[in-house]
C-alpha cells in the first residue's frame, strides 16, 4: 500500500472541504441541534436532582454525534465523485481500491471527530458554567469523558464505512445521503439507550463495544475494498 497515494486523496478531500465551507458547516449543524435538548434539560435541573443522576450517563447521549455527523460526507465519497465525473480520472491512475477508500475514510473521519469533540467540549463548558454545580459535578465524570474520547472515532469510523458502502452502490447522491443518515441512526439509538440507563453501562460492556467497533471498522475497510467494483462505478454495470 502506498502512503503517498492515500495522502493524495486525503489532502485533496481536505482542500475541498476548506474551499467549500458549507460542507463543514452542514456537518456541524446537526450536532449543534443535538445539543439543545440535553442542555435545556440539564440547565433546568435543580441541585437536588444531582443524586438521581448518579446512576445515569447523560453525557454518553453525545455519542450519537459521531455516528450521525460523517453520514453526509461519507455518502458523497464515491457517488459524488461519480456525478462530478472526477472518479474516472482517479481510477485510471495506479491507485489501489484500498488506498482510495482509506484516503476517503480518513478525510471524512478527521472533520467528523474534530466536530464531535468540539461540540462535546462546548457542551461540557455550558454544563460547567450554567448548570447547578452539584448537577455539573455529577454529570461530568472521568469514565464518561474517557468513553466519549474513545468511542467518538470508533463510532465515526463505523458510520463512515457504512456511508461509503452506500455511496459506492448508489447512483444518486441524495439517495445515498438519506440512506447513510438512516443507517447511522441505530448507533445513535444505542448511545441514547446507554445514556438513559436502559442499557446498563459497565466496563465490560464498554470494552466489548470498543472491541466490536474496532473490528467492524477494520472489516468495513476490508469488505469495502474487496467489493469495490471499478467497472460498475464507471459503466453502471456489474463486471
Amino acid at each position: 500500500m502506498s502512503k503517498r497515494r492515500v495522502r493524495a486523496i486525503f489532502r485533496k478531500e481536505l482542500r475541498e472541504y476548506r474551499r467549500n465551507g458549507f460542507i463543514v458547516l452542514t456537518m456541524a449543524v446537526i450536532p449543534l441541534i443535538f445539543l439543545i435538548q440535553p442542555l435545556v434539560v440539564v440547565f433546568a435541573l435543580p441541585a437536588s436532582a444531582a443524586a438521581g443522576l448518579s446512576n445515569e450517563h447523560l453525557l454518553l447521549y453525545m455519542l450519537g454525534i459521531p455516528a450521525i455527523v460523517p453520514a453526509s460526507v461519507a455518502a458523497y465519497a464515491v457517488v459524488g465523485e461519480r456525478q462530478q465525473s472526477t472518479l474516472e480520472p482517479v481510477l485510471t491512475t495506479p491507485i489501489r481500491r484500498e488506498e482510495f477508500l482509506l484516503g476517503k475514510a480518513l478525510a471524512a473521519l478527521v472533520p467528523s471527530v474534530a466536530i464531535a469533540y468540539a461540540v462535546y467540549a462546548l457542551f461540557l463548558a455550558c454544563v460547567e458554567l450554567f448548570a447547578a454545580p452539584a448537577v455539573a459535578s455529577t454529570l461530568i465524570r472521568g469514565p464518561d469523558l474517557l468513553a466519549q474520547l474513545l468511542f467518538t472515532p470508533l463510532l465515526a469510523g463505523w458510520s463512515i464505512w457504512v456511508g461509503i458502502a452506500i455511496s459506492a452502490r448508489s447512483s444518486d447522491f441524495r439517495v445515498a445521503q438519506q440512506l447513510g443518515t438512516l443507517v447511522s441512526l441505530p448507533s445513535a439509538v444505542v448511545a441514547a439507550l446507554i445514556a438513559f440507563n436502559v442499557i446498563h453501562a459497565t466496563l465490560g460492556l464498554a470494552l466489548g463495544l470498543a472491541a466490536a467497533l474496532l473490528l467492524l471498522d477494520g472489516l468495513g475497510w476490508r469488505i469495502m475494498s474487496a467489493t469495490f467494483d471499478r467497472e460498475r462505478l464507471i459503466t453502471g454495470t456489474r463486471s
Partner: protein
Amino acid sequence: MSSDRWSAPERGSPALSVHRLGKRFSDRVAFQDVSFEIGYGEVFGFLGPNGAGKTTTVRTLGTLIAPTSGSATVAGIPLTPENGVEIRRRISIMPESPGLFLRLSVTENLECFADLYEAPDATDRIGGALRAVNLADRAHDTCGTLSKGLRQRVALARALLSDPEVLFLDEPTTGLDPVAARDVHELIDELRQRGVTIFLTTHRLEEAERLCDRVAILNTTLRTIGRPDELREQLFAKTLTVRTLAPLPEPGGVFAGLPAVDGWRQDGPATYVLAVSESAVAAPAVTRALVAAGADVLSISESYHSLEDVYLELIDQDNEASRR
C-alpha cells in the same frame, strides 16, 4: 504479482497488441473481435460512430473494465486483473470529460495526480506539464473558473504527469471551439514529435486524418485499419475528372484505348469522369488526346476521397447490412 517482474519493453515490441478483444455487457455487445497492434511512437486514430465501442475499448485497455473475450498487451504487460496497477503506472488516460476538481487550483489538481502516480520530482513534473500545454501562467487559477478549452488543457497536462508510454486520448476535442481544438491538435503534434505513443479516439475525421499515422474504424467490430491514404485506395477507385468548354462530339473515341484509362462516364454536359489505374500515366495521355481532338480543356483533376468518405462508406455499408 510483483511489479518488479515487468521490465522495460523490448525494442521493436508493440506498445499495444490487441488480439480478438471483446466486451459484452450481459446481452449487449460493446465491441468484439478487435485485433490490432500499435508501435511505440505511433499516433493511432480510433474512429467510429457514437456507441461503436471506442470509449469501452479505451477503458478496457486502461484496466477499468475487464474484457469478456480475447487478450491484449499494454505497454508490454499482459492485460490481466492482477497487472492492473502496473499497466496504469505506464499509461495515461484522458477521458472525454476532463473531470477536474473544480474547487482546487490547476496546481493542486496536478499535485494530487502527481502523488497518485508517485511521480518523482513532482514539482518539476508539474511545471513541465504546464509548460507543455501553455498553462504555466494559469497555475494558480481555480479550475472552476477556466474555460472548457483550458480545462481540456489541464486534463492533458494531468495525463502527461506520469510520462506515460501510451497516452489514451478519448475525444479530446469534443465540445471545443475551433481555436481550442486547434490548440489541442498542436499539442498532440508536439507529443508526437516527443515520441509519445498516442491512442486517439475521435469522430472528427479531419482530426484523425491530420494527426494520425494509422487509423482504425470501429463499429462494434473493427471495420478496417491502415494509413488514411491506404484506406482511400482500398475503398475507392482512382478517377480523373475532365471538364471541357463544350461537350465532346465523340467522347468514346477520345478516351477509348488510352493507357491506364479503364473506363469513362459523362457526369454533366461537358464533364467526364475517367476510371484510371495510374493517374500519373493517364493524365498526360488524356490531355494529349483532348488536344488532338480539338477540345478546349478547362481542367483535368484527380479526384480526392477524404477519410470522411472512407468512414461514411463503411458505416453506410454497415447500416445497409443491418437493414437487410
